[in-house]
C-alpha cells in the first residue's frame, strides 16, 4: 500500500482546483470542469480511507459523508445566497445523520433543531436583504479564490495524510481496535444516549453549563443593543462606492 501514498496529495490538489474553479468568478463551463474535478477528488480521497469492515456501516457512512461534503461544497460555491443557505441545510442534515450513527443522538436532534430550525431560518429571513438569484456583483466575484483553495487543499492533504497514515490498520502502524464487551456496558457505546449526557452536563460540567447560559444571555442583550441603536449614530463615513442600485460596488484605491 505504500506505493499509493501519492493518491491523497493528488486528491487534495484536485479538490483545491475543483473548488477554485467552482467559486464565483468564472463561467458555467469552468464551473462544470470544477465540479468534475471535485467529484474525482472526493472519489480518490474516499478510496484511500480505511474500510470499516462491515458493509452496512460502510454504506451508511458513505452515503451520509457524500451528502454532507457535497452539500457543503455547494453551500460554499453557489452564487445565489438562497441556494447557499439551502445547501447548508442539507449539509446539516448529513452531519446530524453522522452524529446519529456515532452515538450522539441528542446532538443530532439538537443540530437539526438549533441549526436548521433556528439559525438557518434566521439566515433566510436576512436573505431578503440580498439581491435574488446571484444578481449582485459581489456574488459573482470572489477574493483570491486560487490562494484560498490552495490553502484549503494543503489543509485537507496534510490532515488526511496524517490521519490515514497513523490510523489505517492496513498500513501497519497500529493494530485494529474493536469494541470489547466492557466498552458496551458504559460510556457512549453503552446503549443509553441522552440520560448519561444530561447527567454529565449537570454534574461534571455544571459550571460550564452556567457559563454557557450567561453567554447566551449576553448574546441576547448584545444583539438587542446592536440592532436597537438609533440610526444616526451608526452611519459612518460615506460609502466609497455606489449604493445598492448598482448591485454592489468595488472598493476604490485610496
Amino acid at each position: 500500500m505504500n506505493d499509493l501514498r501519492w493518491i491523497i496529495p493528488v486528491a487534495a490538489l484536485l479538490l483545491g482546483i475543483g473548488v477554485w474553479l467552482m467559486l464565483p468568478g468564472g463561467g458555467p463551463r469552468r464551473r462544470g470542469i470544477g465540479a468534475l474535478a471535485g467529484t474525482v477528488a472526493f472519489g480518490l480521497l474516499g478510496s484511500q480511507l480505511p474500510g470499516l469492515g462491515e458493509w452496512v456501516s460502510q454504506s451508511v457512512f458513505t452515503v451520509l459523508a457524500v451528502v454532507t461534503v457535497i452539500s457543503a461544497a455547494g453551500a460554499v460555491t453557489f452564487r445565489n445566497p438562497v441556494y447557499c443557505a439551502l445547501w447548508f441545510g442539507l449539509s446539516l442534515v448529513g452531519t446530524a445523520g453522522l452524529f446519529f450513527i456515532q452515538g450522539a443522538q441528542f446532538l443530532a436532534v439538537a443540530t437539526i433543531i438549533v441549526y436548521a430550525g433556528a439559525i438557518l431560518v434566521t439566515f433566510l429571513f436576512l436573505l431578503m436583504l440580498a439581491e435574488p438569484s446571484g444578481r449582485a456583483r459581489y456574488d459573482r466575484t470572489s477574493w483570491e479564490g486560487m490562494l484560498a483553495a490552495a490553502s484549503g487543499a494543503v489543509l485537507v492533504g496534510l490532515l488526511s495524510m496524517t490521519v490515514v497514515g497513523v490510523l489505517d490498520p492496513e498500513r501497519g502502524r497500529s493494530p485494529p481496535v474493536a469494541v470489547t464487551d466492557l466498552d458496551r456496558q458504559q460510556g457512549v457505546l453503552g446503549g443509553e444516549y441522552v440520560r448519561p449526557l444530561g447527567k454529565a452536563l449537570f454534574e461534571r460540567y455544571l459550571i460550564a453549563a452556567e457559563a454557557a447560559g450567561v453567554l447566551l444571555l449576553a448574546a441576547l442583550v448584545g444583539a438587542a443593543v446592536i440592532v436597537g441603536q438609533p440610526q444616526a449614530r451608526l452611519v459612518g463615513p460615506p460609502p466609497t462606492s455606489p449604493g445598492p442600485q448598482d448591485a454592489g460596488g468595488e472598493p476604490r484605491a485610496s
Partner: protein
Amino acid sequence: MPVDERALLANYLVVGAVLFALGAIGFVSRRNLITVFLAAEIMLQGVSLSLVAWGRFYNDWAGQMLVLFIIAVAACEAAIALAMILMLFRCRGSLDVALWHELREENLPPPADQEPGEPPPPGPPEWPRLTPAGRQPEIPREATDFRPRV
C-alpha cells in the same frame, strides 16, 4: 466481523477535515456577508464531527459535551452576527464585504478587485413565487385597496 474503531475514527476525521477546509475556503473568498457566516458555520460542523468521533473512540462523553457547548456558542454567534449584518446593511445598503475595506490595517494595500468573469443572469430579477392552490377567497375590493403593500 466487528467494525474497526480506528478505521471509523480515521473516516470521520477526514470528513471533518474536508468540511473544515471547505468552510475555510468559503470564509476567506466569498464576498457576501451572509455566505461568509454560513462558511464559518460549516467550519464549526467539521470540528463538531471530529469531536464526536473522538468521543466515541475514547468511549467518553467529553467530546459530545464540547459539541453541545459549540452549538450554544454558535447560537450566540449567529445572533450577534446577524444583528451586525443587519446594521452593516443599514449603513451601506449592500451586503458586500468590500465596502468595509477601510477597516483593514493601515499599511496594507486595498484589496484587489477584478471584474466578474460571468455576466448576471438574463431577464428581470426572479422573486420567489408561490403556486396558487385551492379556491380563491372572495375579498371585497376595498379591503385589498387600503393596504400600502401586499
